[in-house]
């Protein structure tokens, strides 16, 4: 049984509809990423799961129970915010202890001074102390416990926010762009740490990000959101290799997938691309324009006879392990990006003509509306795409 089940979740703010009927099942212990451009409704969806926002329509179940109308604290979820949202007036220790104190102590036991007169406070505080220490140990921040948030670096604050989330062992973790306030290097490091934390805790993680690389590197499954809808959901490989929508293809992968303008022609509905007839049969009527997606790493250099696309080399990006070629192709608005291994295309200079080829099975075809279109090789019955 799924740990989280969202059915037909809609949300409107005043007149604008931000979520347009989201269905999502998340398994127990899964690491799922909600990824999409900013403003597509990821945070809103996460806040609805958390109970911080009420949905306009639809329902949310957690562990089989409908939680609509249940207070955030009673849903037993923890959340890590982009801004970390630490209590500025409390030390790291007390920041992490707050969720425990709210659960384990009565209102009277939380009052200043009076609390020590209530029986049981001291032993409860001892338990809290031990649990906070354990979390601090796990996250390697024992020596920070007595500092205030203002005295911490961004990475340390982020760690405290994670500590505050894991200390009460919730049913699930909701993370809203927890890494986007960190510098690039730390971000890459924290990706690994969060993935390891997920493995160690074996809890459900719902991770919101606009950074497709974060989603690709950490998740069991990725849900790609656009304009208030989840348009594709699957493993990172699925989403990368088999995008069902042009927007997914363009959003996932860096550098971006090349989109070339093509068309179907003739009775056999062959594909015409940059003046070349590609021997495949598209399952779309003849005369339609087709967006042809080819990943940069699927592009290869070719001899001039075997060229399917040719253009002029406009720019070369040497990234060390790989080289990115930007090729201007006649009739295409954006340059075609070609990714080669280290040392590739050393002899080609800027401004020279360059011939490119690709395998037929690496083509991803989309119709005008951006939906995926099937294709098969003209002769063989081999289906791909």
């Amino acid at each position, binding site marked *: 049984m799924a740990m989280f089940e969202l059915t037909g979740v809609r949300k409107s703010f005043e007149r604008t509809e931000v979520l347009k009927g989201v269905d999502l099942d998340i398994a127990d212990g899964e690491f799922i990423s909600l990824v999409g451009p900013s403003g597509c409704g990821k945070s809103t969806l996460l806040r609805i799961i958390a109970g*911080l926002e009420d949905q306009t329509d639809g329902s949310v179940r957690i562990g089989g129970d409908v939680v609509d109308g249940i207070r955030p604290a009673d849903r037993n979820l923890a*959340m890590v915010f982009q801004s970390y949202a630490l209590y500025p*007036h409390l030390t790291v220790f007390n920041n992490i202890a707050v969720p425990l104190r709210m659960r384990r102590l009565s209102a009277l036991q939380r009052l200043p001074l009076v609390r020590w007169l209530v029986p049981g406070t001291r032993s409860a505080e001892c338990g809290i102390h031990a649990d906070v220490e354990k979390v601090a140990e796990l996250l390697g921040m024992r020596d920070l416990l007595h500092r205030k948030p203002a005295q911490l670096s961004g990475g340390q604050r982020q760690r405290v926010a994670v500590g505050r989330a894991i200390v009460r062992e919730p049913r699930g973790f909701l993370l809203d762009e927890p890494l986007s306030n960190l510098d690039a290097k730390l971000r890459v490091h924290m990706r690994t740490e969060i993935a390891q934390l997920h493995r160690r805790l074996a809890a459900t993680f719902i991770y919101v990000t606009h950074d497709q690389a974060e989603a690709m590197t950490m998740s069991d499954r990725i849900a790609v959101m656009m304009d208030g809808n989840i348009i594709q959901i699957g493993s990172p490989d699925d989403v990368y290799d088999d995008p069902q929508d042009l927007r997914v293809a363009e959003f996932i992968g860096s550098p971006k997938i090349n989109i070339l303008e093509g068309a179907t022609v003739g009775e056999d509905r062959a594909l015409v691309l940059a003046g070349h007839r590609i021997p495949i049969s598209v399952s779309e009527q003849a005369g339609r324009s087709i967006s042809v997606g080819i990943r940069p790493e699927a592009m290869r250099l070719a001899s001039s006879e075997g060229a399917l696309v040719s253009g002029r080399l406009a720019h070369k990006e040497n990234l060390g392990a790989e080289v990115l070629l930007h090729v201007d192709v006649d009739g295409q608005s954006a340059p075609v990006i070609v990714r080669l291994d280290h040392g590739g295309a050393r002899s080609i200079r800027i401004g020279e003509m360059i011939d490119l080829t690709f395998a037929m099975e690496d083509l991803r075809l989309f119709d005008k509306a951006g939906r995926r279109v099937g294709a098969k090789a003209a002769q063989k019955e081999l289906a791909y795409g």
Partner: protein
Amino acid sequence: MSTARGISLWGLLRHVLLLIAAAIVLLPFVWMIVTSLKPQSEIFLSEIRWWPERLHAVENYTKAFDRAPLMRFLLNGAIVTVTIFMLQVLIALPAAYALAKLRFWGREAVFALVLFCILIPPQATAIPVFLLFHHLGILDTYAALIVPFTISAFGIFLMRQFFMTVPDDLVDAARMDGISEIGIVWRVMLPTALPALTAFGIFSIVAHWNDYFWPLIAVNSKELFTPPVGVATFRNEEAGTDYGPLMAAATIIIAPLIIAFLLAQRRFIEGITFTGMK
């Protein structure tokens, strides 16, 4: 150049101008203190004497304490101002939190009303409030001095503006941690708002410590007089033209405020710059 020589010409001029302005503001105050040290015979001299030839401080100050229950006035002042401030906080903080962080129908309209209330001078409502208190039978009590000021529209406005700058995420984090809405006001918003609250506290306490108008109307019994009213009647009834003790009494009732301000000066300035009220 200015750093090399310490002060530039413009810097010097600026300081001279500021000093003159400060002197104009401080002069009556200094004169009050000097007068409180003089014997009667030196007060009405035609020449300006900055320091008395014969120091009469002890006599003037003991006379001030003898002739009027100054300690009682000071105590009344403390009771009234501190109670007013505490009640103002008790009401303004939850109200400001609701106006800043909760979404409810009519919120903007309510906030507009709060702004409107700031514009109403207390003198305008004095007579209706007086009549109301007369009917309630609470004139001439501490309640009459305190109750009209417990809801401070200015306090609500000031704290609301400050709360607007507190990130929503912090409030949401508190909700996730299980803190109730009213708990958020006192455990999360109050500690983060301390600078703003200090600034408001000083405005409130100074205003009500120095208030002359309302206590004059609301109370008749001498035991309930606040310092300004007490000293004013002291002049009318007891002192006549005996200005030495009168100025001594005036100095005494101002002293607590000055001392409090000096102690809280740094926080006060922090608070004002923090709330952008400069």
